[in-house]
């Protein structure tokens, strides 16, 4: 069975089709869409018609809604880990330079590591099912696409065998551990992402809905992160450092999908 690649897409057709081209020749690409419409090139549309490019729609989403990454990743885990033990997760606006060498890099390292993460939050990660079994779900109390990735990575760092983790994270809360060189292939600047004429990043999508002066959705996520970990996410150094007195979360995790946990993760 080929390695699955789940693309999380947000109505960015040019980026999505670029992404399918980068992964389509060496993984089984599946799409999870947070938007009711998907625009594929004729070649990719043919793949879809042939059953080789399945598309799952987030039935909770709405054209007026803002993105919700934690829930989206959990949905992908639900669909993907029923019958597979590993997957690639990637957001549609992630540019892959030189996909063949990138493929070689991932295939050469995926047996050494259970998680390969980077370089900018949850834009790309390879993971084994064991990570989900050990650490649990993304915490869906983080709204929008903010803090949930850092929270999940922090929990992995605290709970998982670190020799099995490869992390190259360039956010101001990030850290580097067992780097395999993801940064050579995945740029994270805006020019690499904004190839759709009407490109909107998830953070700005939220600001368009709730206002640019008081972004209560993202502020909720930052406040929840503070409550949970006892420090702010940004500006306080790498989340791998336990210099805040507590190794663990101050708020209990939730088993968001206990039926799946019981049936597929035990």
């Amino acid at each position: 069975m080929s390695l699955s690649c789940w693309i999380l897409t947000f109505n960015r057709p040019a980026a999505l089709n670029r992404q399918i081209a980068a992964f389509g020749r060496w993984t089984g690409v599946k799409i999870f869409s947070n938007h009711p419409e998907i625009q594929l090139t004729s070649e990719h549309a043919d793949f879809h018609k042939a059953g080789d490019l399945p598309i799952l729609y987030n039935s909770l989403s709405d054209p007026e809604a803002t993105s919700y990454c934690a829930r989206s990743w959990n949905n992908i885990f639900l669909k993907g880990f029923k019958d597979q033990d590993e997957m690639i997760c990637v957001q549609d606006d992630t540019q892959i330079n030189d996909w063949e060498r990138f493929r070689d890099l991932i295939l050469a390292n995926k047996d050494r590591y259970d998680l390969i993460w980077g370089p900018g939050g949850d834009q790309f990660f390879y993971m084994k099912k064991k990570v989900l079994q050990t650490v649990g779900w993304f915490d869906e109390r983080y709204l929008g696409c903010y803090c949930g990735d850092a929270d999940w990575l922090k929990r992995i760092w605290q709970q998982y065998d670190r020799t099995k983790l490869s992390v190259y994270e360039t956010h101001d809360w990030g850290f580097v551990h067992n780097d395999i060189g993801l940064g050579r292939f995945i740029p994270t600047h805006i020019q690499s992402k904004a190839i759709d004429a009407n490109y909107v990043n998830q953070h700005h999508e939220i600001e368009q809905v709730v206002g640019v002066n008081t972004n209560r959705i993202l502020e909720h996520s930052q406040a929840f992160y503070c409550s949970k970990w006892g420090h702010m996410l940004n500006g306080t150094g790498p989340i791998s450092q336990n210099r805040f007195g507590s190794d663990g979360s101050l708020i209990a995790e939730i088993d968001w999908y206990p039926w799946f946990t019981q049936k597929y993760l035990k």
Partner: protein
Amino acid sequence: MKTIIEVGAHRGTETLNFLTDHEAEVWAFEPSLVEFALLHRLSREYPRLTVLPFAVDIGDNQEPLFHRENGQSTLQPPAFGSGAASFTMTWTIRLDTFMQLYSIGHVDYLRIDAPLREEMILESLGDRINDIERGRVSRYEQRSAVPAFLCDHGFNIMSDTVSNNTLCPDIKFWRS
């Protein structure tokens, strides 16, 4: 042409001074949307001015830009426990990424005025710090590591209190 990079252009006071040099090409970073709009209008009058709505940081990402009651905007969050933090998200870019994307080989003057983020901005140059000729950094705390960082990378430094609106003297730096 002389290349000037201004990180934290604010309302453009220093930007205008830079532009009085007719050989200067100025790249001004200002992530605050209100001030960016002012500078963007200014740039229509000065073809040698390019204004970028980004914050400079150690990663090419998006980070929260915190808005303080005194009107300042900074990537540096308020102290933990000081109350709700108001912020919007801004694009961030490393200076070495910027110099590569815009084909800038040499920087004649680097001006940094970004509260409590000056070290990260200098670090974002990576090896391209060797392409910086001179500049000035505003300091927002006495125990800043900026002087040591600059000396370690081959610059001469001196304090400069002229035009300074922080509690600490600015640092001028230049290559020998």
